[in-house]
């Protein structure tokens, strides 16, 4: 039995060289919070492990040419606290803060979150609302830029080739006119996989007193995080009031219902979506906190 080889590239060149050796049995290792568990009882021992954690440059967050770049190796802890993320992508910071435990946030990376392609990945839900693209490199040194939707396909499925690694995510930064929020429902307050999550980005036109832009991503319903575009269209042009909050909640419920028709979890999730929507809406702090009507 041949032993697994481990390569720990320290530069982009070394990464490309390592990827050039990759085969379909090769695994890329980032924070390890999913892969290490799997490696304990592998279906098949990997021939090569490419340990990405030596690539310090890949954990950078930077503003460049009008885009916010999030390095694939940025940990959730880093994203939670990074000033650029808090200023220009608050929903990503909020999502990062709600991932797993302190230990998992210290190790887990945003790139791993996307490459692992869980439907419940909090980071991916936030990136979806932020309209992120994914920048990858392969063993030939070729860089590609694709939309997140084209990379994350469904539970455990991505379009990434075995010799392709995520370098970073990029999206237009939110500015002072934007508000964003992330809310999730787990089965306890902290350290819980999302049963339902929502990332919400709006731009509020203070002069007109209406929402001029709205982006809504729902997570943990269906195969992968998705944008609720019908709902987004309905929100634009509306005032930031209780009625819009209700419309937002109704829209989330409708999106959940459309996404998982007949699923066992639907009866719960369609009700819970109301609470989730109000949590996210109130986080925007555009108006006094709203509450659903109770009978």
């Amino acid at each position, binding site marked *: 039995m041949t*032993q697994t080889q481990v390569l720990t590239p320290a530069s982009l060149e070394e990464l490309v060289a390592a990827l050039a050796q990759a085969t379909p049995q090769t695994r890329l290792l980032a924070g390890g*919070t999913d892969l290490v568990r799997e490696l304990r009882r592998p279906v098949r021992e990997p021939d090569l492990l490419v*340990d990405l954690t030596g690539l310090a440059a890949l954990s950078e967050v930077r503003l460049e040419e009008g885009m916010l770049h999030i390095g694939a190796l940025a940990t959730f802890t880093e994203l939670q606290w990074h000033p650029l993320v808090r200023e220009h992508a608050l929903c990503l910071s909020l999502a990062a803060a709600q991932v797993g*435990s302190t*230990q998992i946030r*210290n190790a887990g990376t945003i790139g791993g979150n996307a490459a692992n392609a869980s439907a419940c990945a909090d980071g991916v839900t936030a990136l979806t609302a932020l309209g992120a693209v994914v920048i990858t490199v392969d063993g030939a040194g070729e860089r590609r830029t694709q939309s997140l939707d084209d990379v994350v396909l469904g539970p455990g499925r991505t379009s990434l080739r075995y010799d392709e690694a995520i370098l970073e995510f990029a999206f237009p930064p939110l500015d002072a006119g934007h508000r964003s929020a992330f809310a999730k429902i787990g089965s306890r307050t*902290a350290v819980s996989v999302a049963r339902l999550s929502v990332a919400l980005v709006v731009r509020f036109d203070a002069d007109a007193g209406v929402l001029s832009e709205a982006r809504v991503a729902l997570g943990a319903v269906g195969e992968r995080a998705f944008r609720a575009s019908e709902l987004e269209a309905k929100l634009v042009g509306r005032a930031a009031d209780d009625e819009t909050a209700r419309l937002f909640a109704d829209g989330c419920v409708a999106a959940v219902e459309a996404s998982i028709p007949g699923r066992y979890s639907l009866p719960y999730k369609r009700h819970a979506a109301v609470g989730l929507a109000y949590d996210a809406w109130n986080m925007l702090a555009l108006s006094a906190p709203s509450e659903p009507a109770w009978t």
Partner: protein
Amino acid sequence: MQLVLTVNGTTYEVEARPTARLLDVLRDQLGLTGTKEGCAEGECGACTVIVDGRAVDSCMMLAVQARGKEILTVEGLAQDGELDVLQQKFVEYGAVQCGYCTPGMLMSAKALLMGNPVPSEQDIRVALAGNLCRCTGYTAIVAAVKAASGQDTRPLMEMPVEPGELAAEAVTDPDTLAAACGIVEAETGQPPGGPCSSGGSSEMLGFHSAPEGGE
């Protein structure tokens, strides 16, 4: 494969499988079994260690990923035989029952205090959210972390007595002892040695406290 790891300030060279977890190398190869395994999926926190200042689950990290980093385990908390303040407070506040979660709890708490010397109760509970305990209900653990950060000063438990500390407490007064020795001498016809051959008793006994864990 050959690995060089720095654990608790000591550099070790070990031969390990490439896919060996940091937890396995610490426990099986370095004999540092203070770090525990409770779930093998990063949920219980019993295996928490500090790597470059941050708490991580050592069951979720390959040993190769820890190369070149500073690893701190529970065995490295006490310095020169002195318990770390967190260890001390865990004892004083009754935060330890079965103790299996304790090393991980200590390491998560240590990492918290390294970055946030005066955490709020909420900070503490969030920092420990990835460390499960089935014995304590967390009350005493949270109180101990507060105390270690100077925010609580009402210890509950008595500290165990240091070996030898109780030795001098019970001393027979010289007159009583002399009388007792006289009785034994009269009874046996022999002068009893030991306690009777010098004035006091305690300084000559080579006294030790109760053995740990019994005989």
